[in-house]
């Protein structure tokens, strides 16, 4: 590796002076949130990996937040159209993700609960 790396040149850029605080605090948030995520997910029951995945799908559709702003702010229509498609995609994930997670979780029963309907 010769010369400054990408990271070096990005960090050394004069523009960085304008946003150093947010850059670092965002990086902290990211790293700490990852650790919390690893800690919490490690304890998730192995039975529930499929619902876990659809739940985290729905949660990561938090991209809806960014899409709402891009769609609703006073931007050129083309930009807002991209936002609207992103909003549609995120919303689909939120709705289907939460609904199917709940649908699956409802099926996990222990022996003592009575079974609903259906001939045995």
């Amino acid at each position: 590796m010769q010369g400054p790396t990408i990271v070096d040149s990005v960090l050394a850029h004069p523009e960085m002076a304008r946003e150093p605080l947010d850059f670092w605090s965002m990086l902290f948030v990211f790293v700490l949130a990852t650790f919390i995520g690893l800690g919490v997910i490690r304890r998730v029951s192995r039975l529930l990996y499929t619902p876990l995945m659809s739940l985290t799908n729905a949660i990561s559709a938090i991209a809806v937040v960014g899409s709402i702003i891009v769609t609703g702010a006073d931007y050129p229509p083309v930009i807002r159209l991209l936002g609207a498609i992103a909003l549609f995609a995120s919303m689909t994930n939120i709705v289907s993700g939460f609904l199917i997670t709940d649908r699956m979780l409802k099926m996990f029963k222990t022996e003592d609960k009575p079974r609903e309907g259906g001939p045995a």
Partner: protein
Amino acid sequence: MRAVVQLSYLLATSLFVFALYWMNAPKTARRGVFAGIAAMGIAVVATWIQPEVIHHGWIVLAIFAGFLVGVPLSRVPLTAVPQRTALSHAFGGLAAGLVGTAKYYLWLGEGPENLTPFRMTAIVVEIILGYLTFTGSLMAAGKLQEVRWIPQRPVTYRFQNVGNIGLLVVAAVLGVALVLQPTAAWAPAVFPVIIGLALLFGVLLIIPIGGADMPTVISILNSYAGLAAVAMGFVLDNKLLITAGALDGSSGFILSIIMCRAMNRSFTNVLFGAFGQVQQLKAGGEQKEYKAESIEGAAQVLEQANLVVVIPGYGMAVAQAQHKVRELHDQLKKRGITVKFAIHPVAGRMPGHMNVLLAEADIPYTDLVEMDEINPEMPQCDVALVVGANDVVNPAARYDKSTPIYGMPIIDADKARTVFAIKRSKNPGFAGIDNELYFAEKTWMLFGDAKHVIGELVKQLSGGAGMH
């Protein structure tokens, strides 16, 4: 106003953490869903009421369309859950990619001073991850759904890995150029090239991957979708996006590690290993004979057992046999026989796939046992019933270095006193190798469709009176 929004975001973040925390047991898990819904609702409202959001028509329309597509997507049969999951990763990647694209062109047009190197780096990461997750997940969903024009078998060709990595390097180099010169005259033209390369890379990444690797691949794509959301958070300076994305990213990461371990393979080996290639090696060995057993015979042996362990695999999902399995479970329980289900971590096409299918069939989750817990019990097991599983019970994984599954932890079906294996045909399994369990002295084959065979077993056990 800003304080309200930020406080709402903080609340939403905490609720998301609790949502995942409650997933640690089936009893509290549904509470987790409600926490997640509450968090999402709070986040959406807090964002929508911000003063900069002035146009509402398209928002309402997009949300409405989201419901219109989302509700049917949540009603798919549970055997189709892997492809639904892959599809939602695709949507997640697309959303991230589009917002990154929108923001870049917006700032390029009206505020190039916003395109700081840091933001630009985040945008480049966001679009590369977002778009590659989009096409990669679409391909994965297509393979899982068995769409006709997407090959099911792994597709390999010369220089595949070199080509793929080269593609990614080109995209990265162009990305660095954009970071350094985000407003150069050539920049608006280079941006779509990066998008195109990312889209292409996503396709090429999934083409060589076969069905048995899908649990790992879906987990990796899950992780990417989360990281794309994180990058979007960096672009938009939004900490809620960063935390929620990081939670998703770490979840996908942990699941991929667990899946890799369950197959004794590394990340790189899954992504670049092209599982299908090795299969020629074992062909041409001496022809071994299967021993077939009749339904009546099998039913008699089952009736005599004390402990029956059912080992389900993807074949059970394909045959939709889980409800028949449950009837068999009931018949055996009625006779005081203990029935357990041995779940291999990579059985099926996504993490936890078998658990969900069996839970759907009303089998109590307390009877579903992990591989590590069931294996010590296998010597006491009278009958191991293999339903559509293959590689996860192949004893060759323990010692035969020439098989692609060497080193993979397996369920010790061969230690049971008797093994019944239901198999549709005499063809070898996914890895293309004979399963020597099927030729063992204690193994009897029940050839036929899993649903049909188990249905016949149930009929036999219930006295053949046709109660169904």
